[in-house]
């Protein structure tokens, strides 16, 4: 595994219509780190993520993925190295059956027959989907949570070293969201998770990067930024819900509160 899978230097990107999506972004992620990428709508999260897979090429600055700079010559190595999980699984599941869809990536890698089958089964098991039951099913007839897991399996089947998620918990019910969080916790890969679900970020990631209008305005411990409501509001975000919930057990309450309650 590469020790420093992602390093971005001074990256800027402007869309053809003149919108400047990224301005001088600097970011470096170490192996097996799980990093949350948060920011308001239109802050440049998706644009940044598309750079990590070479779908957008840097206009200014440099993106290094593993030992390769993101440019058109290294695209296939980069795409094997970084797996991108899109927000809407319907955009990602384009083959008729689950098995075929998960096999799409490894087939592009040139795997065939037994090896291909092994890889697909392994990926399906990694996301807790029974290949017997799901394999031949139509990707259109799955629930949102199942679709998400098939999409993740499709990316895992390529054996990437870095997983990049765009809004993984969007449109999931609480149980599917919980299963997803548990799944992400078990995956021993470097992960960059763009999300509006700050509770998920707090639970999964020790480190958080805040993007605002295309710039990195915070890069550090998740708990530090989450406990600074003024800073969050300033960048069009809001404290995680769990910060405003009443405490179920007294020992979880902050010291100040517990000392004032007579027991």
């Amino acid at each position, binding site marked *: 595994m590469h020790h420093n899978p992602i390093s971005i230097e001074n990256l800027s990107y402007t869309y053809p219509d003149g919108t400047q999506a990224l301005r001088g972004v600097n970011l470096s992620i170490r192996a097996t780190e799980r990093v949350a990428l948060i920011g308001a709508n239109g802050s440049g999260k998706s644009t940044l993520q*598309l750079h990590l*897979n070479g*779908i957008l090429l840097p206009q200014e600055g440099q993106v290094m993925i593993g030992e390769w700079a993101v440019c058109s010559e290294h695209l*296939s190595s980069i*795409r*094997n190295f*970084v*797996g*991108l999980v*899109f927000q*809407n699984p*319907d*955009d*990602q*599941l*384009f*083959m*008729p*059956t689950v098995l*075929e869809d998960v096999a*799409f*990536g490894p*087939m*592009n*890698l*040139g795997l*065939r*027959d037994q090896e291909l089958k092994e890889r697909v089964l392994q990926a399906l098991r990694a996301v807790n989907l029974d290949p017997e039951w799901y394999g031949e099913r139509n*990707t*259109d007839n799955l629930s949102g949570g199942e679709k998400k897991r098939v999409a993740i399996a*499709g*990316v895992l089947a*390529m054996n990437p070293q870095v997983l990049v998620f765009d809004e993984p918990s969007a449109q999931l019910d609480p149980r599917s969201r919980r299963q997803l969080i548990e799944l992400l916790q078990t995956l021993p890969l470097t992960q960059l998770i763009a999300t509006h679900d700050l509770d998920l970020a707090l639970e999964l990631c020790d480190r958080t990067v805040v993007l605002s209008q295309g710039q990195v305005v915070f890069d550090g411990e998740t708990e530090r930024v989450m406990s600074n409501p003024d800073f969050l509001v300033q960048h069009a975000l809001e404290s995680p819900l769990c910060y405003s919930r009443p405490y179920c057990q007294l020992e979880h309450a902050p010291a100040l509160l517990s000392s004032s309650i007579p027991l």
Partner: protein
Amino acid sequence: MLLHVGAFHLDIDSKQTTPWHQLAPRTRILCTVLFVFAIVLTPNGHWWTWAIYGLATMSLLWLAQVTLSVLLKRLAVEFTFIGVVLLGTLFRGGGKLLWAWGPLQITTVGLTILGSVTLKALLSLLVFNILTLTTAVPALLHALIELRVPPLLVAILTSMYRYIGVLNAEFNAMRRAAVCRNLMSSKRWQRLVIGNMFGSLFIRTYGRGERVYQAMLSRGYQGLPQVEKVSPGKRGDIVALTLTVILALLGQLIYWPR
């Protein structure tokens, strides 16, 4: 097309285990296409040939254990489209004049052609419907690849099959949203709104196509779909193909001396 979308479950009889189902999907496609070619290339007026082919189709119908009610429903829908073409074949000159009203005339030649084309259409549709009823779409697409149909073309068919349900759901969601805001006032207004829905559906499809392509790229797609190895055929497949060819020739032989 839209008539079919409502119940998009084509292969309701694909889980059975009849001799027809034991054939590899590519053999089923080959037999069907061969047979349809034999049907449509038969010259007009060769009724006995079609009688033989019809008998064969009926035996296939029985052999494959197709659900008749569904088959007939689909045939009825498809015939409404073909009906327009059929009407055009009726009014033409030549032969004995049977009936005339202004420029419209019905002649013996017209009737022969109408009957022939109707039979050809009926038999071909029957055979194709049996194929789609008994074979799952993914298996059909796979078989097309095995039959050396250009992979890019099959990939386009595959994504059409995959996304028609999504598009349908999206259109229904839009329609429901419009009805929720009281889209009832006038027929003209309804038509306008539905037209706009189609427009925005088209634009959304464009955006979705872009995102799907990005998702494909990010999983290593390099412009051409990958093809799996083709499994060798079994003896049953060869027998079925031979039978189809013999049947096709047998039908034509009846009119041979003429």
